[in-house]
């Protein structure tokens, strides 16, 4: 029994991590069709902001939940204004520019802070489940991901700002004709995506190796999740994260970590072969 429960928690934790690291990318890609190759570095910046804030004596929770999304969100505003705005509708150019941005960010952070930064350990201790013990922070991460997902959904579904954002996403020309300042909507969407990435980076910081190149370990995974998810950014990303996360975790349990990764990629490739538009190209089409 405790084995089933502990394994279930690991699977949930795998799904939550995948969802958390992909959500910011999903917002930017889903709203604006901008492929942000610097997404991994946004996560890294979130982790660094949290760590530096903690080192400066700020409370750990404030650092993770407030400082990191704020810093990376503001950085997103700057990036949107300087780079992304000039390249709307030019997908390949945007990819090239954001890839350059990602390299520049890795270089800049290495130059300023060096290759190492003294991280903080995960709060909340450990939880005993029968013969197994798991980290309390891991459980918090699952809950935080669900709250974040619900919050993004609620904003998009129930607030006027969400309505305007969705309208702009569906038909920017029509929205502009109705007097919506689409440029500002895009800028805010990009900043929101960056802020969510920053928050995600800060939340995974106590459970991962925070180094300037840490984004590279996450970027491929988050892209696979978002692309497999398809057009509907929330339903797509969460269903893809649910599927790929559980395949990865259970595959790792039953076989080896190497095969666990291979299985996850194989499922993603198979899915995209069968459903080229992603999961939400066929299912949950009308969802967000």
């Amino acid at each position, binding site marked *: 029994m405790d084995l089933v429960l502990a394994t279930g928690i690991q699977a949930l934790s795998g799904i939550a991590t995948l969802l958390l690291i992909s959500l910011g990318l999903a917002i930017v890609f889903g709203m604006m069709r901008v492929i942000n190759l610097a997404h991994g570095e946004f996560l890294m910046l979130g982790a660094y902001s949290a760590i530096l804030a903690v080192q400066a004596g700020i409370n750990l929770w404030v650092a993770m939940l407030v400082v990191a999304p704020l810093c990376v969100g503001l950085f997103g505003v700057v990036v949107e204004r300087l780079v992304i705005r000039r390249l709307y509708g030019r997908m390949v150019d945007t990819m090239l520019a954001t890839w350059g941005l990602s390299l520049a960010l890795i270089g800049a952070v290495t130059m300023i802070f060096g290759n190492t930064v003294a991280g903080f350990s995960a709060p909340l201790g450990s939880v005993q489940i029968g013969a197994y013990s798991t980290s309390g922070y891991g459980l918090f991460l699952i809950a935080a991901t669900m709250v974040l997902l619900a919050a993004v959904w609620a904003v998009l579904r129930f607030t006027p700002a969400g309505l305007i954002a969705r309208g702009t996403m569906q038909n920017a020309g029509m929205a502009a004709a109705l007097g919506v300042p689409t440029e500002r909507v895009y800028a805010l969407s990009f900043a929101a995506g960056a802020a969510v990435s920053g928050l995600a980076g800060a939340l995974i910081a106590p459970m991962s190796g925070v180094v300037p190149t840490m984004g590279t370990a996450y970027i491929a995974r988050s892209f696979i999740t978002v692309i497999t998810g398809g057009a509907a950014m929330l339903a797509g990303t969460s269903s893809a994260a649910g599927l790929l996360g559980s395949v990865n*975790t259970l595959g790792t*349990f039953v076989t080896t970590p190497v095969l666990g990764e291979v299985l996850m990629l194989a499922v993603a490739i198979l899915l995209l072969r069968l459903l080229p538009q992603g999961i939400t190209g066929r299912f949950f089409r009308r969802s967000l």
Partner: protein
Amino acid sequence: MTKYFRDGGGDAVAVDFFPLDVTNFGPAIQKIQAAKPDMVVSALVGGAHVSFYRQWAAAGMKSRIPMASTTFGGGNESLLLSPEEGDGIVCAFSYFQEVDNAANKAFLEKFRAKLGANTPYLGAELAMRSYTGMRLWAEGVKRAGTTDRMKVIEALGSGISVDGPPGRTMLDPKTNHVTLDVYVAEVKNRGFNVLQHFPNSPPADTQSVCDLQKEPNANRQVVVDVRI
């Protein structure tokens, strides 16, 4: 590692390999909890794999199963972890900044005097080995009396050594590897606490399969037999 465990009278309960970008070690940690080994030996490398040590500590495993590593510290991993995550991991390298001998003390003093406030933490062997390698070459040049490539190579093959902060490093002409001192240390407060010192450890595994004096122009790949 399995071979050395068995040679030492132990056994490996299970061996797992991880792709370099794996960041979620939850399943691995749970497998270890189920197998209940007496100790865990990690050969993980890279930034992503640092996640293992953090998730291990977060799951409360640090006080239950001791850990050793042949790689931890080589990339200054100890600086990334907080003391409660890192302290107690046992590592082995041919140098740690904390090695206690006169040569190391004198070296560190000069190093600090030169770099002042910007002095980096040297940690485990990587930086020191590059420095020692350079000094071995310089020794070869001195003996050859010239920087001519072939003459320096011949001089390097004539059995040279340098004394430095890690102890004595001797170039072994049979393998082009070095005989050096090895230290065992435990992680302590983002640094290391040296526990044991093994002077003059030869590159025994390579010597068992390679002899460049007999075969100076050997160009095949040799594999150390670790079958058990």
